[in-house]
């Protein structure tokens, strides 16, 4: 078994128009910038994929990563909890112009919907959002005398995520708080592609320390020295790079 994919372009080649794509990360931490940029490269040369539904906690920052994907017009709908950032203009302008749909989900509900999607649980009840605008039209039931809101699972066609180390079996470990949504999204997508900073031999990751077992991962691509969104933004970067 070998899940290693030799290039970023091959890693994203199977994502079709209209796909639901989960993108890992919380802000820039754990965001698979290189996989996102590979998707943009493919779109610029082939016109595909487009009309994507993207699931991410945020809506991008600046003009790189998820913001760049939105800036290209590749995203039809965004499912997220917090579409604000230091520089949210790319999303904000398209949203206010009615060019992109937003499904706003409380952060813990977003995480649990993805977890449920990966665990084969179609619905669950949560106290979060009860009595608020975000619970509108959702069924409510009482348990032990308290009201809870029914929420549905969230699944995806593809997940593109970022991990620290991975092996050819797809076992992954993450780096610090860059873990965030990445392990959940790996479980909830039909196909999960992980970019890893380092590919290691099977056995090099202590089995006690594996965070995402390889069963949840279909492809692993190595990106040594991955970019950090925060560093790119501080340098005023945009993707694709603007001609001087």
């Amino acid at each position, binding site marked *: 078994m070998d899940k290693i994919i030799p290039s970023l372009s091959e890693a994203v080649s199977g994502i079709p128009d209209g796909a639901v794509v989960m993108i890992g990360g919380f802000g820039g931490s754990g965001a698979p910038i290189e996989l996102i940029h590979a998707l943009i490269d493919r779109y610029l040369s082939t016109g595909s994929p487009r009309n994507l539904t993207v699931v991410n906690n945020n809506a991008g920052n600046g003009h790189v990563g998820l913001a760049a994907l939105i800036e290209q017009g590749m995203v039809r709908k965004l499912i997220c*909890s917090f579409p604000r950032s230091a520089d949210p203009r790319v999303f904000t302008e398209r949203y206010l112009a009615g060019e992109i749909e937003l499904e706003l989900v409380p952060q*813990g509900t977003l995480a649990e919907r993805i977890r449920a999607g990966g665990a084969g649980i179609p619905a669950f009840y949560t106290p979060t959002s009860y009595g608020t605008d975000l619970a509108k039209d959702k069924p409510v039931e009482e348990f032990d005398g308290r009201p809870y809101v029914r929420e549905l699972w969230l699944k995806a066609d593809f997940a593109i995520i970022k991990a620290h180390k991975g092996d050819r079996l797809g076992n992954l470990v993450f780096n610090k*708080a860059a873990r965030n949504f990445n392990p959940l999204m790996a479980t909830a997508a039909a196909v999960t592609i992980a970019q890893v900073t380092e590919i290691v031999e099977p056995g090099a990751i202590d089995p006690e320390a594996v965070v995402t077992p390889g069963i949840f991962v279909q492809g692993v691509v190595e990106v040594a020295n991955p970019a950090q969104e925060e560093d790119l933004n501080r340098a005023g970067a945009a993707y694709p790079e603007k001609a001087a």
Partner: protein
Amino acid sequence: MSSKLSATQIAWRAAQDIADGAYVNLGIGFPEMVAKFQPPGCEAVFHTENGILGFGEAPRPGEEDWDLINAGKKAVTLKAGTAFFHHADSFAMVRGGHLDVAILGAYEVAETGDLANWSTGPKGVPAVGGAMDLVHGARRVAVITDHVTKDGKPKLVKRCSLPLTGVACVTRVYTSLAVIDVEGGHFVLREKLPSLSVDDLQAQTGAELLVPGPVADLVVPEL
């Protein structure tokens, strides 16, 4: 002492109620300041939604690790005993009743304990983050806020006029003028600035203040 507490002083007062060993989530922005004012000998364990328990202070500029940030996307540091976990575990800690205290900002707090702190109305881009999750599950949900808005309107009200974050969730409010508990659908005054009469305070509060017992002086050091 000036006629009202500064944001820093409100954060200091809220910090005095955090017990040693408490698990605490501080909302992004203003509430993050609370961490700086833990009383001597009290060590809380801070939780952040993006998957860290027991993180340390901000690093020096230039030493940031952008894989080590808090929910406000600000860089933090490791401490001995830090733990990382994914987002579903993080919110299991929140909703599952494992946090002792959540301290949040507010646009409005109602006497029923309803909180509005995520949306100022239908204009612009809505964003909720973890606010609606945090108000459920923590044993105490405290709010730190100015007592009135910039225009002088009460932020403590009978019913919230802005979109709700949660229903009957706030247990205590630390304001620039007073410390007020929410009990049985009422505001109960516990502490107030000594320079202020109860009537003065009531005049700046949008719902009835109950005073069933002694009211302590709210005394905070100059910071």
